[in-house]
């Protein structure tokens, strides 16, 4: 494993904390929509959190850093009592999208926008699938809506992540 520099670690810490806080801020807004169509809230806001993991992974380019950032977010959620219905599983449900992003990052994308869109959508969808298996156990129509909400959240998060990365590239 490549030795990471101090600014890489700082970037990771920023992405972890901003991603964690962003989801808390966005969730009440997205819950308006999920409550309306009566699906569990959360999946529609996850993309806004995962986009910062994507930024961190794209910036640092070390396999495993996405998983570690997700794990750190999960531990934050657990220790701050923000685990919601997931309980101790929150550590797994936060780490898994980080692992998905790491795996997507193994493929070299010519266009960074494609990386952000695909990794964020895949990470959010993976998180939704895992949360369903572990906790919600939805079926058929509800499950399809839950997954699609995750994918849409991931697409929006990925698009935003690409834009944010471009603006912050010099600073990062």
């Amino acid at each position, binding site marked *: 494993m490549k030795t990471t520099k101090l600014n890489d670690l700082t970037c990771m810490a920023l992405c972890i904390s901003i991603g964690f806080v962003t989801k808390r801020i966005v969730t009440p807004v997205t819950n308006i929509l999920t409550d309306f169509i009566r699906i*569990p809230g959360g999946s529609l806001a996850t993309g806004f959190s995962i986009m910062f993991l994507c930024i961190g992974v794209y910036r640092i380019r070390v396999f495993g850093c996405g998983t570690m950032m997700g794990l750190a977010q999960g531990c934050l959620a657990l220790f701050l009592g923000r685990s919601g219905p997931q309980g101790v599983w929150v550590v797994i449900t936060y780490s898994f999208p980080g692992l998905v992003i790491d795996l997507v990052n193994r493929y070299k994308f010519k266009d960074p926008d494609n990386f952000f869109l695909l990794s964020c959508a895949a990470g959010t969808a993976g998180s939704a699938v895992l949360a369903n298996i572990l906790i919600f*156990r939805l079926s058929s129509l509800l499950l399809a809506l839950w997954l*699609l909400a995750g994918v849409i959240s991931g697409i929006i998060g990925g698009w935003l992540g690409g834009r944010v990365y471009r603006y912050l590239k010099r600073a990062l």
Partner: protein
Amino acid sequence: MPCKWRKHIRILLIAFILILTVVLAAVRLMGREDAGGIRLIQGSKEKTVDIGGLDQTDFSGEMVNGLGEVTRHDFRGAFLLDILHDAGFLPEGVKTVTVTGEDAYKAEFTVEEIREEGRIWLAMEDNGSQVKRLNGSPGANLIVFFEDNSRRNVRAVESIELYE
């Protein structure tokens, strides 16, 4: 493949996902039957209980949220075991009970927990405010006492399923 076509494929894929989501959401909303009560299900046996027709009593207790904050609540509602008995759903032979809210949130209990005196209630009023469903109709929240947090409380209960 030329870059222009790749961009079109990306846009088409996103549009397809959005359209599919809207269609499924419309199906979900149109297919929703608002019985205005709580469905009790045990195998092939099913019954809808009218919330307004339940014998209600006052009860109160402390709730602990995910942050460890304790709040005191005065409720008006009914003991869950009494509701099941009155509806003819006896817990004999039942091992688990799953309560589902209108947002598809589920909480699972053992039959021993259901039988535990003063533990699991359906609350139609919370601190003087009527519990309402998302569409504004009267609802009931599942309240579980003697827990470390409120994780198994269910908002706007839609169905209660008993498993043997």
